[in-house]
């Protein structure tokens, strides 16, 4: 993108004018090993998914132990976000946004559980347990069969029911959007 390189160039000039010091006067190099500790993000194409795997059956136990207290026994009826159901409600007066009815990417489910759940001890689930509980939540939503299993190869291939339910804002311009409708 030429605008980016132009901006980079401008930035480099500004840096040269403002600060005569060398780059390593600020901060220190990050080592590959420590980057790996923090580099947890997962993209829709599967980049960032760790090794390991988990089954729906094992996920049922992980869910009962770690998730059901807030999300309900079957991902419904808990004190926090509902995870299951809501199909066909998005265009109604009372939309129910769940993993099954709304989330566009299964990779996002893995990423979110892995970084943020369970609420009181985020990051405490192993990669295997995270694959398993993601598989179980997808099973509850009829996206995976009872004998389903997930790993870094199969997870990105799942097409979520609402994958095509999102429309990006053109150039982040609400006025354009407003005129278009």
């Amino acid at each position, binding site marked *: 993108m030429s605008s980016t390189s132009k901006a980079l160039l401008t930035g*480099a000039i500004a840096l040269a004018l403002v600060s005569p010091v060398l780059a390593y006067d600020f*901060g220190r190099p990050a080592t590959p090993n420590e980057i790996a500790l923090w580099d947890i993000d997962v993209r829709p194409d599967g980049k960032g998914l760790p090794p390991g795997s988990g089954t729906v059956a094992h996920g049922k136990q992980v869910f009962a132990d770690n998730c059901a207290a807030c999300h309900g026994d079957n991902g419904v009826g808990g004190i926090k976000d509902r995870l299951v159901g809501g199909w066909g409600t998005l265009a109604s007066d009372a939309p129910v946004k769940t993993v099954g009815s709304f989330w566009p990417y299964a990779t996002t489910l893995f990423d979110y559980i892995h970084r943020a759940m369970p609420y009181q001890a985020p990051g405490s689930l192993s990669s295997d347990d995270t694959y398993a509980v993601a598989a179980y939540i997808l099973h509850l939503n009829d996206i995976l069969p009872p004998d389903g299993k997930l790993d870094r190869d199969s997870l990105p291939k799942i097409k979520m029911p609402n994958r095509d339910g999102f429309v990006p804002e053109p150039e*982040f311009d609400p006025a354009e959007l407003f005129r278009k409708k």
Partner: protein
Amino acid sequence: MTNRSDIPVEKRGANHEPAGFSRRNLIAAATGLVGSIVAGRATADSLADVPPREVGADLGGHSERSKYVKISRIPEAAPGKRNVDPSDAINSKTPIDKLFGSITPSDLHYERSHSGVPDLDPVKHRLLVHGMVRNPLVFNVDDLKAMPSVSRVAFIECTGNGWENWKKADENLTVQNTHGLVSTNEWTGVPLKFLIDLVGKNRNSTWMLAEGGDAAGVARSIPLTDEILDEAFVAYGQNGEPLRPAHGFPMRLIMPGFEGNLNIKWLRRLKFGDRPWMTRWETARYTQLRANGKATQFQLRMETNSVITSPSGTMLIKPGYQRVTGLAWSGHGKIAKVEVSTDGAKSWKEAQLNLPVLRKAQTRFQMDWIWDGKPTKILSRATDEKGNVQPDRKSFIAAMGTNAMFHYNALQTWSIDETGRVRNVLD
């Protein structure tokens, strides 16, 4: 009425005061607003009743707000779920009906936190900058403070601001309830561009993941447009002091004009890539469901907006002189004008803007009004320097539906009945 919005209010002469202006009327009108402050302005007002001067309290290391000023944020668990147990709150709203000018006191800046406020020791906190870069680097707070800095007054607004009024209007809401998820502070920090130059970003990197050090590890994908490259910065200062913990101590991203959620607090990682990551917050959470069941994604900029903060919901006014005042802001740039209607949007008058009017910062507006005591409706309408006009509610809902939850910027209408009671209404 002449447009005098370019003249600083404090420089206008006394002749600007309208006929019928009197301090007593002003105080009467204001009692609903700041009753605790002007308490005691009763009937038989005499200087003889003013307490004599006396030696004051000892000087301290820092000063507290007056005990006579009752002012606080309101924690909220969801639209309509207010004054909840703090452990259930997901946000806390700024009392914009009780503030002056355009800067929000640091302790009253609205807050949206996804997993509480972490207790981060700045000595141990680190920022990792990596991904598509030549030199991945780790910075601590002292590193940032040693770099060239910028200071900028900017508003931050939660995309949920206004979410009370999507489907219905609770007539008992205050403007703190309806519009308390926006605040303006001066932020100080290091330009994102400076960090980008230090790590040597690959020219093919067009998106950046910003991640917080809170328990939830809140993360958002940010497109590296020229505007964002020019304006984003990593802040460590807030209104002249280190960031408050609730607002990201010891460091946070500031993205002037963009969704509050993009201003990642407790920043601990910036990763450069070439596409968005599709995190939970930019897919399942901060997307706007339209009437057809499709959701708008990456509606990143905050819209042109304004609200009258006085008179506003639940206040009681008396016939006669009113100082109509409020706040306007736009993620597109400067506020160009604010119009006020005191007849239910039939006619509009241009309000005065308090200077300075800054890009992507809240701007205070005010206007004189004599209320004749008849029921009416008042509202404000902002226009920004790019020509964006705040939409009326009917057009807005026609375009957005009522399920979007986020990015509500329709005109706010306050209805006033014959007793002077001010109520929240849809239009």
